[in-house]
């Protein structure tokens, strides 16, 4: 092995342990008898290899991961909005049904309490009427109401209750 080939191997494969054992042995034999190539090896190690030893890996700041997580998290959320899963669909349906039930129940109660109120008023008026028909007529005459008011109130309240 001559000096050119030796130095070519020295600067790469030999110092990086990429040579097969047979060629590595050949380089070693050459170095043992060649001060020039030995000096060359020492120079490569001193200026191009050893200065990098003990240099640690740099680390990205935490903010880099936070930005990445925000970007990919946003993408994942967008995907979920476009294609809602079965759980989300079921939850939405349940919410709509509950809202409709509350709304209908509220209107039923409102109508029912109005009916009860009219019924009470009617009961009161009837109790007055049951004492004396003339009294009833006098009261109504005293209130200056049209003569058919009572029957209209009675009919109205019965319609509503029914």
């Amino acid at each position, binding site marked *: 092995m001559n000096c050119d080939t030796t130095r070519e191997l020295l600067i790469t494969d030999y110092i990086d342990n990429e040579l097969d054992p047979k060629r590595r042995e050949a380089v070693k034999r050459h170095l043992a008898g060649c001060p020039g190539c030995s000096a060359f090896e020492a120079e490569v190690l001193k200026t191009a290899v050893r200065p990098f030893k003990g240099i*640690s890996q740099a*680390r990205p700041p935490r903010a880099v991961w936070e930005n990445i997580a925000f970007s990919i998290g946003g*993408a994942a959320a967008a995907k979920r909005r476009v294609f809602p899963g079965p759980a989300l669909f079921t939850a939405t349906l349940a919410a709509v049904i509950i809202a409709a039930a509350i709304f209908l129940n509220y209107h039923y109660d409102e109508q029912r309490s109005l009916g009860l109120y009219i019924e009470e008023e009617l009961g009161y008026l009837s109790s007055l009427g049951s004492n004396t028909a003339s009294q009833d007529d006098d009261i109504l005459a005293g209130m200056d109401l049209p003569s058919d008011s009572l029957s209209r109130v009675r009919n109205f309240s019965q319609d509503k209750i029914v």
Partner: protein
Amino acid sequence: MKKIPPELIIKAADGDIAAFEEIYRHTSGFVYSIALRVLCNRPEAEDVTQEVFIRVYKNLKNFAFRSSLSTWIYRIAMNATLNARNRYSRQSGNSVEYDDEVHAPETAPSADDPEDVREKEAELARLLAALSPEHRACVILREIEGLSYGEMADALHININTVRSRLSRAREALMAAASKRGDER
């Protein structure tokens, strides 16, 4: 290179952010290191790291397990870094000078004396300044990341003999720069 379990990759590909963060923890040091030491600019290195991992996440479903995930990420990182370097030098219109100031506070905690670490980093900065971005990338992959020639070829997407010739030229340039500094003293 660190081996990433296939189950973790599958989970991350299915949108598991915690699994993806685990992959990030395994590989982000490499990606950021390469970008920082080749670009010599901290905000650019952070942008490249971010770009690389967003690209990895989006393409994880297409990862076919033909190579290791680390190699795949390293390749994406090298492409993104060298593209950013070209973009950056086109914008600035000249070559980027290596700035040792960007490194010292960013490295992993070390048991060494902080003064020694700073000196080492300053020396590293001087050495890398003598190299082209491609040669710089080769030296970093070999000397700092400890990749084999085969792994370097995969990461750089080049022939193994091209790895040899780039590494040889890079070391010759480092020797020449050291000799020049010796002459100047």
